[in-house]
């Protein structure tokens, strides 16, 4: 008895102490994110003149208004297209990374990770240089005589999609890469040894085992997409108002803090729901035994 108790006690103590390692991160999260957020909501709602019923009515009016609903729909639609685009582009790249060695590997990793470390504004302006009316793409196409007038590549939906997809690609590639690296190559060999063609092996073994990575990557990209501001603001047109831009407009132009707070809250809730999905999926990954 004493031996058992003696050996258990230090183990429990160690675990208690390791929790302390989270303190700095928790402090940052609480004081730099949660407290300001709550404070922001409380302040703005407290400043509202009128009864609670009036407040609810105004909130409903705002959240059901055409501009907000349109922006919400636009936001989700853009996020969806960006997610699918990034997945289709990122999957082969991630697969290449798991198989490549030497120079090809280093070059690919560099070209994925380097932009990841570069400011979004810089990357967005780079695309504007390329896609503008007198940008590189249009100039080259005109010089070669393929087109007579510059293509509208920017200040419209296409520009937003190109810019956002590029910015978010590394998140997808790195998430997929992690999931694909965890797939035991012995399983692919086993599939071939048991008579499966390359395509059948992909369909029945590789793809299902990479599915947790696909879902994780898609959710990360989607969650980041719906909060996007800089790229759509710079590269989009009049019809590409996303929720984040609407919030900015309420604050900067209309100086209507309660409306901005309400819209922020709505956006936050959508994000949280998606995050819960994300959390569930990472659990599923463990359930099916993928390492």
């Amino acid at each position, binding site marked *: 008895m004493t031996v058992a108790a003696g050996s258990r006690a230090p183990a429990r103590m160690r675990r208690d102490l390791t929790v302390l390692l989270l303190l700095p991160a928790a402090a940052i999260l609480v004081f730099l994110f949660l407290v300001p957020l709550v404070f922001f909501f409380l302040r703005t709602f407290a400043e509202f003149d009128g009864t609670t019923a009036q407040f609810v009515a105004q909130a409903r009016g705002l959240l059901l208004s055409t501009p907000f609903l349109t922006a919400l729909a636009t936001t989700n639609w853009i996020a969806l297209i960006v997610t699918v685009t990034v997945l289709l582009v990122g999957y082969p790249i991630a697969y290449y990374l798991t198989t490549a060695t030497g120079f090809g590997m280093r070059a690919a990793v560099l070209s994925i990770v380097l932009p990841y470390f570069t400011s979004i504004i810089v990357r967005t302006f780079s695309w504007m240089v390329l896609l503008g009316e007198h940008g590189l793409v249009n100039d080259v196409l005109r010089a070669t005589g393929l087109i007579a007038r510059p293509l509208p590549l920017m200040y419209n939906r296409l520009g937003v999609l190109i810019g956002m997809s590029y910015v978010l690609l590394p998140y997808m590639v790195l998430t997929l890469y992690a999931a694909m690296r965890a797939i035991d190559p*012995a*399983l692919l060999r086993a*599939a*071939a040894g*048991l*008579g499966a*063609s390359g395509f059948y092996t992909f369909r029945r*073994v590789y793809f299902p085992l990479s599915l947790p990575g696909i879902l994780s990557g898609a959710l990360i990209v989607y969650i980041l997409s719906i909060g996007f501001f800089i790229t759509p603001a710079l590269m989009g047109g009049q019809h590409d108002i996303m929720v984040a831009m609407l919030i900015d407009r309420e604050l900067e132009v209309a100086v209507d803090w309660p409306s901005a707070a309400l819209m922020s809250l709505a956006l936050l809730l959508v994000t949280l729901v998606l995050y819960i999905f994300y959390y569930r999926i990472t659990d599923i990954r463990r359930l*099916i035994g*993928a390492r």
Partner: protein
Amino acid sequence: MVEVDSVLAEHGRAAAGTSSAAAAPAGRGAVELRRLTKRYGEETVVDSVDAAIAPGEFFSLLGPSGSGKTTTLMMVAGFVRPDGGAILVDGEDIAPVPPQKRGLGMVFQNYALFPHLNVFENVAFPLRARGWGKAAVGERVRGALDLVRLGRFADRYASQLSGGQQQRVALARAIVFHPPIVLMDEPLGALDKNLRFEMQVEIRDIQQRLGMTMLYVTHDQEEAMSMSDRIAIMNRGRIVQLGRPAEVYERPADPFVGRFLGEANLIEGIVAAPLGEIARLRLASGQELRAPRGNSRSGARGMLFIRPEQVEIMPGAAAPGDPGANVLVGTVRRCSFLGNILRYAVDVDGASVTVDRQNAAGAAPLPPGAPVMLRWPVADSLIFPAEG
């Protein structure tokens, strides 16, 4: 057992015979390796390997790690491209055939079960990959699962099974499409000793009943000897000896094989001029040992090979003459109790000779320091040239 037998009867055509090499299912499943060679850079990991495996034969590649046995198997499977030589299956060179078209059953090291598929779907995999219909798949998979006694576990995932059960799933998956040839790469390596023995019997039994050709890689000499019709012992990329288990155990081709297959005494001395068909080895003490004549040169240093269990040990120092036996005198250095046997280390003029005695009830072990006489038949001895 009745259930299992009916399952086996269903395997019909294949289950024709039970004796080893004769049980060829329609004569399919012959494998021939011709001067098979694989190099990695400067190193030749498989060096001109020749072997002809008969349909229905249980053939083991046995050797220490790095001996080239797994590389040889991987070349047959098609995962490693040979640098020289050929692999013939039923007389046809399979070099241009990719792994998935070779039609071999395979059990991999660590099983390689698909973690996202349950037991049923794992076993069904080779059939579905071949485009079998649903009903046929169901019937065949249930048959294979019954054969390995896992019928009740069809809905489980690999992570929910014990090591032995996972092994059985891998086995069922390898044989479900009735391949004429099955390859196994250290399939029992991860199991504990008792389970390993049980699985050896089971695998051998299934192989016999289905009459398939087995190419089996292991580093465990007992496993190879208990299961195989023939064993190829590999060292440094070459087959150093190929033969039936008793043959290679009792008459090893060189000291390496002798030691690798079990406890071996290799007593050093100088080879003396042969007397007719009898080779002689003179020990430093002046005592002389004899063996059937081999390829050792007289005057050179040599070693006499004898298995510990062939040596008789008797108390006393008197040495009665016997033309058919080698006799040595020495003293007991140590006696180890190994359960079923007593293992003596006997000091013979500074050299140690190992002797195994059955642990008979009531027999008191000889104490250390006791003078003893060792005796064994000349016919069981071999003389090798000294190593190095």
